[in-house]
């Protein structure tokens, strides 16, 4: 059998698709979508393949690939996955594949839209599979930048009302609301990447090994002082993308203004890049810094959980509800990591996956509802369940997973995380977590009841709305299926993840 460069293929397939779309599919929207579906489909199949082939007995990085890029400076194109990145690659594949189906009706400048979307996905894959910090940083930038145009051109304005000092600065330059959200998001994330870059350079320079390889840097014992501030730099840099409070404010604006597929990708996958970065780079390379700052990471995560849930309760725009619930759920991810326990860290990674799927599902559904009803105002809508039973069912399942009902993926993740919190140095972290789960159930049930299962809206505008149709079903079915599959049989994900978290915790000195 020929050994395929699986990871490179997965990473670059969407990029190839983008190039094909740019140069091969002029003014042919169907061909554009076909290329997008095929290239992301290939990535999905290959992701499933490596998920299958991944050796769960032999821990460590597998499917290793290497190519020297800039030898005198020690930059190497090094790819490999362990259990954690494996799951993230799978998540990315599922979300983008579903995302392409969900935005099937995108008409306006569709060629450019899909090209940018696919380039962005290549960046996301790249971050998850890179074992060279520098290449990782390159991919990170690729994953962030297309977002500006994607939101700026295809985003939606209107129900977004910017406030605060940032909005004031933007009004002076005459920028409208979706442009505002796009710019805010881009600047926040690039601001974070400045910290990441400085941290990476600091590690490189002081390691004295003239290599950016994660594998080599893992062997270096940095001075505690350096570890301390580099960890903070990574935490701030990646944490912005993960949506940590108080640096999360780009995320509700960005998610709410973005077009459907971009919201799905962004909340579903890109925020995980942030959490992944904190775990992989921060905790993986800087054990002393980790032990020193974990109280801060965990405490802020608790703030995230409660604050995000409370904010979600206060929203009247459906997309904002989902966006703030993401902030809350990312708090669970960070809390799990901060516990420094095996179950907590497993829960954290599992939550990255589970939240990615359910948020992707939510944004796909909101996109569908908005497309049909032309409204996102929760309290104008009502009783849609009778008109669009499919969408209503999918939304309810997503909601139940979000509030952590057993037999959905969300339950497994929250359970493991809270277990970890109880076992950690700060057991009181458990309480904000549980309160967050409780608040989540309030707003999720309220929104579900209001929109889908409550009394029908008297507004004639909402009569006779169609259910999802054709390709749109594909996205919903895939996501709901995955959500339940991983809830019923969490072992298929937790086994590989465990092969990544145990060595990490061993290096941190928590496990023997």
């Amino acid at each position, binding site marked *: 059998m020929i050994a395929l460069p699986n990871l490179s293929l997965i990473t670059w397939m969407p990029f190839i698709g983008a190039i094909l779309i740019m140069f091969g599919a002029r003014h042919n929207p169907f061909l554009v979508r076909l290329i997008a579906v095929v290239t992301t489909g290939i990535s999905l199949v290959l992701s499933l393949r490596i998920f299958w082939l991944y050796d769960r007995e032999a821990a460590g990085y597998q499917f290793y690939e290497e190519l020297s890029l800039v030898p*005198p400076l020690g930059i190497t194109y090094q790819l490999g996955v362990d259990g954690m990145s494996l799951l993230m690659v799978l998540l990315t594949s599922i979300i983008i594949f579903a995302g392409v189906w969900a935005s099937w009706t995108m008409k306006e400048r569709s060629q450019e839209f899909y090209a940018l979307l696919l380039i962005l996905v290549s960046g996301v894959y790249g971050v998850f599979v890179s074992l060279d910090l520098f290449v990782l940083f390159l991919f990170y930038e690729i994953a962030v930048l297309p977002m500006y145009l994607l939101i*700026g051109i295809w985003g939606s304005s209107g129900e977004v009302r910017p406030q605060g000092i940032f909005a004031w600065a933007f009004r002076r330059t005459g920028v409208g609301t979706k442009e505002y959200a796009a710019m805010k998001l881009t*600047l926040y994330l690039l601001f974070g990447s400045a910290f990441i870059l400085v941290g990476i350079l600091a590690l490189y320079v002081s390691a004295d090994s003239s290599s950016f390889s994660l594998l080599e840097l893992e062997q270096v014992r940095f001075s505690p002082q350096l570890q301390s501030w580099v960890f903070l730099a990574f935490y701030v840099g990646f944490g912005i993308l993960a949506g940590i409070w108080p640096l999360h404010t780009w995320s509700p604006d960005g998610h709410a203004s973005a077009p459907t597929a971009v919201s799905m990708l962004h909340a579903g996958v890109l925020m995980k890049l942030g959490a992944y970065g904190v775990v992989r780079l921060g905790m993986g390379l800087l054990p002393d810094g980790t032990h020193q700052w974990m109280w801060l990471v965990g405490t802020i995560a608790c703030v995230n959980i409660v604050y995000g849930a409370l904010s979600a309760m206060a929203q009247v725009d459906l997309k904002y509800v989902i966006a703030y619930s993401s902030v809350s759920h990312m708090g669970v991810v960070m809390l799990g990591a901060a516990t420094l326990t095996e179950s907590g860290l497993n829960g954290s990674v599992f939550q990255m996956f589970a939240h990615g799927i359910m948020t992707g599902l939510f944004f796909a559904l909101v996109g569908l509802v908005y497309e049909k009803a032309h409204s996102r105002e929760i309290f104008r809508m009502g009783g849609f369940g009778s008109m669009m039973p499919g969408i209503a069912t999918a939304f309810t399942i997503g909601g139940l997973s979000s509030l952590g009902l057993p037999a959905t993926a969300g339950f497994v993740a929250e359970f493991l995380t809270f277990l970890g919190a109880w076992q950690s140095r700060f057991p009181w972290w458990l309480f904000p977590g549980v309160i967050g789960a409780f608040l989540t159930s309030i707003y999720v049930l309220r929104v579900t009841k209001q929109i889908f299962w409550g009394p029908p809206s008297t507004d004639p505008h909402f009569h006779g709305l169609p259910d999802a149709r054709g390709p749109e079903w594909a996205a919903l079915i895939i996501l709901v299926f995955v959500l339940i599959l991983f809830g019923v049989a969490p072992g298929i994900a937790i086994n590989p993840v465990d092969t990544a978290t145990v060595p990490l915790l061993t290096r941190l000195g928590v496990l023997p």
Partner: protein
Amino acid sequence: MRAFSLEAGLLVLMLIVFVGGIFGRRDDSRRVGVVSVLGLVALFYWSLRLGPGASYWGGAYVVDDLALFAKRLFLGATVIGILGSLTLRAPAFARRATEYYLIMLSSLLGMLVLASARDLILLFVAFELMSIPLYALTGFQKRDGAAVEAALKFFLVGTVSSALIAYGLSFVYGVTRTTLISGIGPGLAGGSPLLILGLVITLAGLGFKIAAFPFHMWVPDTYEAANAPFVAWLSVAPKAAGFVVIFRLYLEGVGDNVVLWVPMATGLAAVTIVAGNLMAIPQQNIKRLLAYSGIAHIGYMLTGLAAVSASGVAMMLFYLVAYLFGNMGAFLVVEAVSQAEGSDNITAYRGLAQRSPVLALAMLLFLLSLGGIPFVAGFWAKLYVFWAAAEKGLYLLVLLGAVLTVVALFYYLLVAKRMYIDAPARPGPIAVPPLLALGILICGVGVVAMGVYPKPFVLTALRVAAAIF
């Protein structure tokens, strides 16, 4: 005589342009320019075949790796600058085209000599030979009041800076009793405060030339008033020359006696980055925006200088080349849009992506390169200077620079927004003259090539810089 062949060749070219201008038809501006470009391309090709090693007049004139690198850079920049200028249409310009190209070439001659000068007097003379034509070119459209005013400002500031340089250099000579730069190091060993004072004053003078904050005042007005192809050249070549002088005087001369001026370079870099980027934000005129962003770029280059290391110099050289392609390309696009729309306002770029997708893409690439985004040249340039500074532990400066890069991206993205997100103000593509398109193409290829495959450039820069230390 191989060592002087470039300067001699340029003199011959100038003679041809001069004679051709006298006897040629007065209303044909193109021919003279085309001859200049062809001659310069030939000289550039010839420069690739020259090797380093020669030294004349007791070490006053050298042809080392740095000199050759700089000369190629100057020649390349001038080729692109003239390619852009060939499309200038103002009637007043057409009748005096010979003068324009001749003045430009004589400034280039100054740069070529400057690159090799390792003697204070030769250095100063070459510097003036380079600078004075610039004042004339700024006010070339003499019926344009703004241009004349800008030229006057530029001239006054420029002469003051020259005076400062001369004043500072006189201290250097007074202490070391030699005009050779190699005499500075031994003089410093004597611990003379006068010598330090002289070097500090000279750096202030050079600060005007390279437009570091707070010596930058002439830049926005000059850029706004002069024509864009000339500004493209002005924003790159003379500044590169200024940095060559800094390398010669401070790195070859002072060497690793860094106590003296590293704090100065660090401070200068920090304030220049902050001021340039912040002042660029409110600009509505694209030339002024690029002017302030250019000031910020000088700050980034000074970051590499503050590292005082071979890698620092190498990274600055790399930065200069990346800046050449990015900045000149951007100004050439400005010229194209300005010719079609008659405006340098940023609003003229509305919907450019839908009117002329290729031109908009080129501009986007240049702006992203200036902003330091991966896979275009500017990313590596910024990364490398930060790297050099991080090697010396200047983490705070690096963090400052990296954070302000985000500010820079803000105003670059505002231009990108006009091009890609806004609806076009009027339909129809923008006509780009073929020669201008060629210039833009060269810059675009340069930006992408350096971005995708920086290795050969880095290796060259490292080799050149290693020779200094």
